[in-house]
Every structure is written in C-alpha cells, then in structure tokens.
C-alpha cells in the first residue's frame, strides 16, 4: 500500500504537484491517466523517492518513507524508453538488483528464469541488450521488475515506444504478469483507451492534481467533473447547456424533461454519444431535432454529427441508419443517462 498525504512537489518556485492525497492498495493495478505534462512522472518519482517532496508525507505499508532512500523502498521502475545495462547479458540485467540485494546464486537463477519464461526471453538470456529488438529490450526491463521482490512497481508509459502490435500484446499480458506478486502496480499513460483496457483503478491527472480516483468503470460511469466526463469518449461526449427552473430542465436548442434534486440555475449536461440514438429506447426519451452535418460508418456502427441549437451533438448507434446530410432528423435520449455539472465544472447530479 502506498499513501500520499498532502504531498506536493515544487521545482524552484513553481508547484508541479499540488497537495495530493492518494491511497493505492497492494495487488491493485492502478493507472495514472493524464496528458503529457500533467504530472504523472512527477508523481511516480515522488512515490519512488527519486525526487524529494516539498511538503506532506509518503507512506508505504503504513510506514513513513518520506525521508527513506529510493534503494531502501524496494521498488521497481520501468521507463518509456528502454533502460538496460548495456554491457551485461539479459540474464545479468535481470539478475542485477537481486545480486545487489545479496541473494543466493541458486535463488537468483530460479527467479531470473521464471521472469524470463513469463516474458518469453529464455532464448535471449545470453544476448546483450543492443542485440535485441525494442520489444525484447522492454521485456527485459519488465522482467527485471518482476524478478525483483518489490513493494511497488512503477511503469511509466512502458509501451509508448513500441510498435502497435507489440503494444497490444504486452498490454494484454501486463495485468496478469504482476497479479499476485504482492506489489502496488502504478501504470502511467496518456491514452484513455489503455486505462479502459487495463481495467483496475484509474487516477485522472490534470495540471498537477488528481481530479478523480476510483475503479476505472466507476470513473467512466460517474465522472465527478466535466473534464473527467470528457476523458473516456470516442467520439467526444456531448456537452449541452440546460436551464433548470422548478423541477424542469430546458435544453438549449430544444428539449425538456423533469429533474429532481437540482437548484434552479444554468448547468452543463453531458451525455455519451451512444446514449443519443435515432430511435426510441424508452418511454422517458426526450426528442432532439437537428440538422445532420456529417455521418460516418465504422464497422457496424453509424454516427451522425448534428447541429442542435448552437451546439454540435453526436449520435452513435448500432446498425446502419439512413441519414440525409443537410436534412433535419430526430434523435432520442433518455435523461437518466444525463450527468449535470455546475459552472465550476463539478458534478451536481
């Protein structure tokens, strides 16, 4: 378990990581998801002890490690680009942290071979890193992290420099590789799709702070703010404007429905594209009418971009639908799938 308590990081006078509280459980696969520069690597370095923290505390398994050296924290780190000792064989690379730890020779061999088998490195054990492909080099780095008995494994965009096919293969294996090893796994990525594919838990990062943390599916279903709502969506999530008066929501551009538990005022409403369909899905559906601007077919789904008042909306539905570009069409949306956000971007209902 790793806990951050009001941890901050600054470089000079610039605050890189704003006060952050985060608890990551042992055995969980945690994804740090955020754009480049949002602070994922900084947060990892703080937890790993590679960068000092300006204030706050870092705890591992309940023990305060804020001032503890990196090498005493029992962690592993895999980088975006492939870091291996250039002069050592793959075997020695995987064995190096075990040797430093003073492990017995027979045990080292067992552990290295186990890790090599998991990552299909067995035939390459006696080669040097520069004789390997990029994927094999990164697998060597991963094997080193697996062979070492770590309390935490940090993977900082480990697949970013691999080609498409290898990335998919390794991504599929990753959660299994580290499952049951008694370590907190932290995986940083800038691709929302990766977070969804990897499952587990996700911490959304934006501008040096964690905006939401929880099981990945929960974040997808119940975003706490408008930014989180926008993260997992392709095509992008629909964001409209509603005015609530009494218990009635009036959508800008047309459409009204009943809401409960919301004070009068202006809100942003977010609906995922697949919840806006060209056919009725329930009696509660609200009809939205708009002129179709663009239509796309992808696989067996068809999407339509339509102009609804001043806002552009997207509908995504299974099946092929006969849209006429430039014509008005009716779309249907169940208000139960609407999420409402206040002027500050925070979730209201």
């Amino acid at each position: 378990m790793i806990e951050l308590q009001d941890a901050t990081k600054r470089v000079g006078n610039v605050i890189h990581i704003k006060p952050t509280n985060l608890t990551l459980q042992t055995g969980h696969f945690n994804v740090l998801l955020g754009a480049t520069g949002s602070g994922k690597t900084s947060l990892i370095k703080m937890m790993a002890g590679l960068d000092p923290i300006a204030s706050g505390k870092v705890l591992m398994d309940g023990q305060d490690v804020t001032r503890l050296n990196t090498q005493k924290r029992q962690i592993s780190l895999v980088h975006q680009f492939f870091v291996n000792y250039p002069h050592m064989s793959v075997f020695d690379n995987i064995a190096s942290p075990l040797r430093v730890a003073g492990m017995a020779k027979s045990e080292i061999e067992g552990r290295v071979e186990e890790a090599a088998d998991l990552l299909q490195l067995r035939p390459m054990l006696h080669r040097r890193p520069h004789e390997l492909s990029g994927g094999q080099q990164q697998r060597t780095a991963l094997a080193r992290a697996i062979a070492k008995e770590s309390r935490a494994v940090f993977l900082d965009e480990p697949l970013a420099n691999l080609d498409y096919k290898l990335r998919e293969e390794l991504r599929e294996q990753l959660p299994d590789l580290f499952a049951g090893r008694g370590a907190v796994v932290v995986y940083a990525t800038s691709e929302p799709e990766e977070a969804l594919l990897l499952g587990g838990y996700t911490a959304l990062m934006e501008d040096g702070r964690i905006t939401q943390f929880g099981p990945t599916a929960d974040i997808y279903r119940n975003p706490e703010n408008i930014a989180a709502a926008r993260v997992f969506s392709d095509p992008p999530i629909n964001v409209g404007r509603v005015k609530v008066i009494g218990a009635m929501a009036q959508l800008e551009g047309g459409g009204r429905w009943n809401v409960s538990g919301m004070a009068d005022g202006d809100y942003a409403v977010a609906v995922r594209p697949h919840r806006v369909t060209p056919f009725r899905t329930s009696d509660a559906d609200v009809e939205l009418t708009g002129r179709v601007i663009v239509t796309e077919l992808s696989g067996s789904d068809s999407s339509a971009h339509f102009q609804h008042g001043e806002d552009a909306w997207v509908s995504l539905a299974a099946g092929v639908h006969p849209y006429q570009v430039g014509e008005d069409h009716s779309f249907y949306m169940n208000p139960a799938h609407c999420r409402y956000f206040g002027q500050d971007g925070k979730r209201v209902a």
Partner: protein
Amino acid sequence: MRTENQKAWFFVLPVLALVAFNALVPMMTVVNYSVQETFGNNQFFWEGLGWFEQILRSDRFQAALGRQFLFTFLILLIEVPLGIIVALSMPRKGFWVPVCLVLMALPMLIPWNVVGSMWNIFTLPKIGLLGYFLNDVLGINYDMTQQPISAWITVIVMDVWHWTSLVVLLCYAGLVSIPDAYYQAAKIDGASPWSVFRYIQLPKMKTVLTIAVLLRFMDSFNIYTEPFVLTGGGPGNSTTLLSIDLVKIALGQFDLGPAAAMSLIYFAITLLVSWVFYTLMTKDDAQ
C-alpha cells in the same frame, strides 16, 4: 540482362585526386629517397633496403624508439584516467558548466611552440617561477636543463597540462548524453557509485574514449614542437623523442636516405599501434 558501366569511378575521382596530392605524392618522394643515396647535384644511387636495415639496427634509433614508447605510455597512463576523473567531477547542469568548459578548452587553444616557451620560462631554475620556487623555497634540487629526470617530469607535466582537456571534453560529451533514466535505474537497484561508473558510465563513454585514446596516442607518439622548444631533446639525448631525432638526421645532418627510411618506419609503427588499439577497443561490439 545486367548492364555494366564504369561511371561510378567518376564519383570516386575527386577523392582519389585529393588523397593523391596531399598524401600519396608527397609520400612517394619519401619512399623514393628511402631506397637511394645522393651526394647532391641531383645524382642518385640505388641503395635498396639498406637504409631500413641500418636504421632498424642502430642503437640511436632503438633508444629513441624506446624513449618514445615510454613517453606515450606515461602520457596515456596519466591523461586518460585523469581526464575521466575530471569529466566525472564536472557539473552536468547549471551556471558553472560553460565556465568549466571554457577553462578546459583554454590550454588546447594555445599554439604548441608557445606552450613549449611558456613551460621553458616557467621551469628554468633561478629565472622561472616554478624553478625558483622548487629550488629556493622548497629546497628541491630541480633543473630540467641538467637532470634527465627533471626534464622528463617537465615534458610529461607540460603535455598533461596541454592535452588532458581533450580527454576531459570527449568524456564529458559522452557523460552528458547518458539519460537520467539510467541513473534512476541504478539508484532503484541500489548500485554503488563504483557500479554506476563500471556498468553505466564507462560503457556509455566507450566510443568517445576510443577516440580519445587514439587521438592521444597518435598526437603524443608524433610529438615534436613542445619538447623541442622546452628541452631541445636534452639534456644529452634524454628527451630526444623519435621526431626530434628524425629532424636531427634529416635537417641537421642532411642524411636524406636514412631520414626517409626512418620516416616510413615511424609511420608504419604509428599506423600499426593505432590499428591494434582500435581493434582491441571495438572488439566487444563486433561479437
């Protein structure tokens, strides 16, 4: 059908012409002299390999060659480790980086004969600052114009002063190109500073270090100006290195034949040793 033409040769022609004019043609004149004897008046007599045999057998050449190898050996022994140590202790970022780099480059910017004169004046007993300080303040008996040991120490210290910077700058370039990630990986593994040097920094510096060793070998093996200005090869013959001896034979005694033969032998040794160094240092990569 395979078409063949010789057009490709035209593209190689400029390089061949250039190399011919600045290397092959001048060298052929040396080859020409090395197998003939002349008494002036442009009259030449065939000598065969006689001069080569004479040079290789002469005590004078063997002694100069021995001194040359000793000199180069000491230079490499001191400058390469010293250069690595200085490069390792230089800052990697911040205000002091350009300051250090400029300070390091300074000695290399000074012309060779100026370096010789500087050290000559600096180390002369009674007159020179260092000579005076050693003799009259510390009471050490030091006179590089009279004592072979003092002369050797002075020549070596001068070369270390002049050329260690080259090794430093090359190694420094190799060091700053190592990504932080390597140091982080070592830190996480709990590697000692020695292990970081042995398994990260040294392997990553290998290419530039190969170049540094080769350059320092060739330069120090062919050194002429600085020791010539500093000691003139003396006292006696104690600092007469190969090139100094060569110039004595060629221009002092005007023995063009033996001098030409000696030049070729000298060149062959330099080439051979450079090749051996290069092969040994790049052997690992080929495996």
